């Protein structure tokens, strides 16, 4: 029993070390330019509207992608749930991008979604678009749609895998029971399938949100210059030519880790509520 928590603490210790060092560096106790404890840097960086805009933009983009991917995952799982044949093929195709690195996804997204990318070229060839400017801006755009789509594409396989597994392992039996108890198809979906899916998916959804919010490569290649995605802002400050400003990055590291901590806490809390408690 005790060993379990100790082992977990050991695994988490690098993050703890990162938090401790970042906190020290953000308060002038360590880092490039330690000058003794002071909260000046903390309050200055956290007082910048740009930082909050970055955070908000990152959260918004990651949330959108996560929601979109969740909806699609449920759709895929519901539409293609039979054992073999076309359904199996569809499920395999949905899971195929699972191990594709973010870097590859982002590289492809640029080639595909840019205003002069393949989609735009197809539109031009079809006569729908007169030039790159007619293509809606998806890449480097404040709306961040290109990044949202890329992250959605990256997250869908994992969520689809969880959703199809849920339906395959528990769905059929529960649905049959419900039908046997007199529920119609709609009631079965409303009262059995849907609650099963969303409750089962929720922890994965929170986890996927954390991945999306922290992704560096995709943001670096697809995000706009303003607001700057949080990981990009962090790295930009970390390599600022002004040595005195580099410590700012550690405040942002703390913000990023805090966001992660919140997501992870929520993730386990949801799992705890849905698996350990009755009802």
């Amino acid at each position, binding site marked *: 029993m005790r060993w379990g928590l100790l082992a977990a603490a050991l695994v988490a210790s690098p993050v703890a070390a990162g938090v401790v060092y970042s906190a020290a560096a953000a308060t002038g106790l360590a880092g490039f330019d330690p000058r003794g404890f002071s909260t000046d840097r903390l309050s200055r960086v956290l007082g910048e509207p740009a930082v909050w805009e970055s955070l908000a933009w990152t959260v918004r983009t990651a949330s959108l992608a996560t929601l979109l991917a969740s909806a699609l995952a449920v759709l895929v799982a519901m539409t293609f749930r039979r054992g073999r044949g076309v359904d199996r093929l569809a499920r395999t195709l949905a899971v195929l991008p699972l191990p594709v690195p973010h870097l590859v996804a982002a590289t492809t997204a640029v080639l595909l979604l840019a205003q002069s990318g393949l989609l735009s070229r197809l539109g031009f060839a079809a006569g729908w678009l007169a030039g790159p400017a007619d293509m809606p*801006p998806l890449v480097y*755009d404040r709306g961040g749609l290109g990044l949202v789509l890329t992250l959605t594409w990256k997250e869908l396989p994992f969520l689809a895998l969880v959703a199809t597994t849920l339906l395959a392992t528990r769905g059929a039996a529960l649905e049959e029971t419900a039908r046997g108890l007199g529920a119609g198809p709609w009631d079965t979906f409303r009262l059995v399938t849907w609650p099963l899916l969303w409750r089962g998916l929720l922890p994965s959804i929170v986890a996927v949100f954390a991945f999306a919010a922290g992704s560096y490569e995709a943001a670096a290649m697809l995000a706009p*210059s303003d607001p700057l995605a949080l990981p990009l802002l962090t790295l930009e400050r970390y390599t600022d030519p002004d040595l005195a400003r580099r410590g700012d990055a550690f405040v942002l590291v703390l913000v990023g880790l805090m966001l992660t901590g919140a997501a992870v806490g929520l993730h386990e809390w949801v799992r705890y509520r849905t698996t350990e408690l009755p009802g």
Partner: protein
Amino acid sequence: MSLAKASCGRSSTPQPRDLARAPWDSLASGARGTTVTWRMWRGDPSINAYVDRWVSPRVLQRYGINLNAVEGQGPEIVNQLQVEKEAGAGGTADLVWINGETFHQLRQADLLYGPWSGRLPHAAWVDSASPIISRDFEQDPAGYESPWGTVQFALIYDSARTPAPPRSYAELREWILAHPGRFTHDQAFAGITFLKQLMYALGGGVERFQGGFHEELYRTSSNRVWRWLEEVRPSLWRRGGSYPPGVAELHRLFANGEVDFTMSNNQNEVVTKVAQGIFPATARALLLGDGTIANAHFLGIPANAPNPAGAMVVADFLLSPEAQLEKARSTVWGDGTVLAVDRLPGPWARRFAELARDPRALSRDSLARYARPEVAPEYHERLARDWRSRIRRGGS
């Protein structure tokens, strides 16, 4: 800390203090059998090919040095050395490719070894009379870096799409206003250099900016830059609400006709990019009449370099007429030499003069006519930071 030193240290390497006194020959023979790790920008296949397939085998054959070129540029180098110093860790690079503000920051933080560049045998042929080569962003290298090559900033346009390109910043402004959405600059080094030239043009010429950083001059002239940018902003690409992260992304926009201009710190880049099929064959370089910044790039040795002796030997080879000539070929790299060509012995002067010129490249005369020196690095740093907070943020 001592553990880190022990694990990284190569005990056979002479310590820096001894190096300063050791005769060159014994220094070179001492470096035999060692490895030199060279941190540099690795993004261009032409430059990589020169380093990996031309320089490396020769360095190995002649000096018995194993050259290991690794990725890392400007801010990354500073950051890496800074953290290494803070952590008290042994160094991981022997030679770094730097200039301008990177050199400034490294010197400020005392992260460079030196002075050493005067000890290189080939240093005697360096064109020290040229202000572009003898100064680095108005800084005196003071022996802490050795010049390696020269480049000059140029705009790049497609002669098929834009037969009559603007020839000055004033004309460029008119052109941007007349062609909405067709111009932008990147957020990184080239883009900031573009803004710096704009600052010279609006601030009364580069001469006023020489002689160190002046806050007042910077404020008034940079304000003109922001006004200029705000004025053209609605006509910039994406209405000035977003900017490509780096020059590569700008190149991609240019090549596919999303914008009509791109830019480069290296006037010869258009030649290699056309050869690589990245630019259309009709792409050309363009110098604005207000003058474009020419600068030299250098090689430094980190203060914590495990193998400074080897690094010096490599830097010396890179300075040799042979290596400089190969690098200057436009089919190889097209990087300008830092040697005083007319002072070179024997056939070398002739060989440099005979370098085949690519028709797309700019003539040496016009390059020289429009070349402007770099000024104090603070200008670059301030422009970059203020552009981010004033223009990049709060667009659209």
